[in-house]
């Protein structure tokens, strides 16, 4: 079982993802955007953060039409697990593997800071290592992290329990004040209807090794990865 981490020109969080996976004791390998297939031993494919194609045209727009994403669509169609982080979330939305899109942050600023998040449900296998309403902390570092979809789509995501994490404060309160980027309904992470593709703006891989997690809920990213790697459906 291997975790494959895709890389594009301008990706810069791929090694963070590889290191986090290694830290947790699993195999991780890199794939390049020109590669045309996802190997058969893939248990999870991570589309990492960064600035693929310099965010030119729209964040993730050109990544979405790269050969490896064409291969990823087939892999996801077959039920394979995909985790898009930050720029990866943007790529998955552009590729229509996830609904909605990410707009420029409400205050126009690049925001880089730790972020409390509330676990909305125990969507298997992703959140099986958490309990509902648990508070975790993953850092955010983005300029275009404002999740947007029309009201009908948001309602459908809510009704189908496809919203996995929301921005909240330390006490778990969810409101506009604590919303770092203007995301609708404070949405920080969603999955597709089938539940095998997840996208999130915060970086769970940056709260796996306690050394780099600012001591805030240290290691709270680990159960996310353990959930996928250990839970057999």
């Amino acid at each position, binding site marked *: 079982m291997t975790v494959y981490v895709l890389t594009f020109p301008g990706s810069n969080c791929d090694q963070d993802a590889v290191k986090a996976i290694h830290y947790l004791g699993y195999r991780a390998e890199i794939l390049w955007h020109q590669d045309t297939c996802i190997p058969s031993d893939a248990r999870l494919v991570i589309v990492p953060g960064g600035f693929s194609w310099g965010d030119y045209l729209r964040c993730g727009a050109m990544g979405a039409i790269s050969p490896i994403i064409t291969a990823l669509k087939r892999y996801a169609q077959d039920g394979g697990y995909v985790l898009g982080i930050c720029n990866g979330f943007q790529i998955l939305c552009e590729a229509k593997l996830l609904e909605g899109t990410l707009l*420029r*942050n409400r*205050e126009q600023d690049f925001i880089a800071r730790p972020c409390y998040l509330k676990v909305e449900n125990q969507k298997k296998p992703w959140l099986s290592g958490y309990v509902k309403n648990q508070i975790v902390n993953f850092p955010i570092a983005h300029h275009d992290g*404002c999740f*947007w979809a*029309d009201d009908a789509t948001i309602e459908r995501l809510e009704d189908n329990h496809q919203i996995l994490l929301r921005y909240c404060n330390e006490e778990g309160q969810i409101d506009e004040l604590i919303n770092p980027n*203007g995301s609708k309904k404070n949405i920080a992470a969603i999955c597709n209807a089938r539940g095998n593709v997840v996208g999130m703006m915060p970086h769970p891989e940056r709260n796996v090794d306690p050394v780099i997690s600012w001591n805030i809920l240290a290691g709270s990213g680990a159960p996310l990865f353990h959930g996928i790697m250990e839970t057999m459906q």
Partner: protein
Amino acid sequence: MIYNIVVFVDLKDGVLDTAGKAVSKSLKNLGLSHQERSVRIGKTIKLLIEAENDAQVEKQVITMCETLFANPVIEQYRYEITKEA
């Protein structure tokens, strides 16, 4: 035949435009009055396409717009096609 293409990509109505909002604030600071919430920022893409006829080039332009130039979740597009002199 060489065709001159200009594509205009705009945000759909109802989509949050934080950049437009920021520009609106700046206009206000400059004392330049305008209707609030009316500033919307789009983009222009220009290119040349070689094609056999008008129908063929239009088909190509639409494909480019649908697959790359515009994100249909939040954007709409229109285009102008002229023959290069």
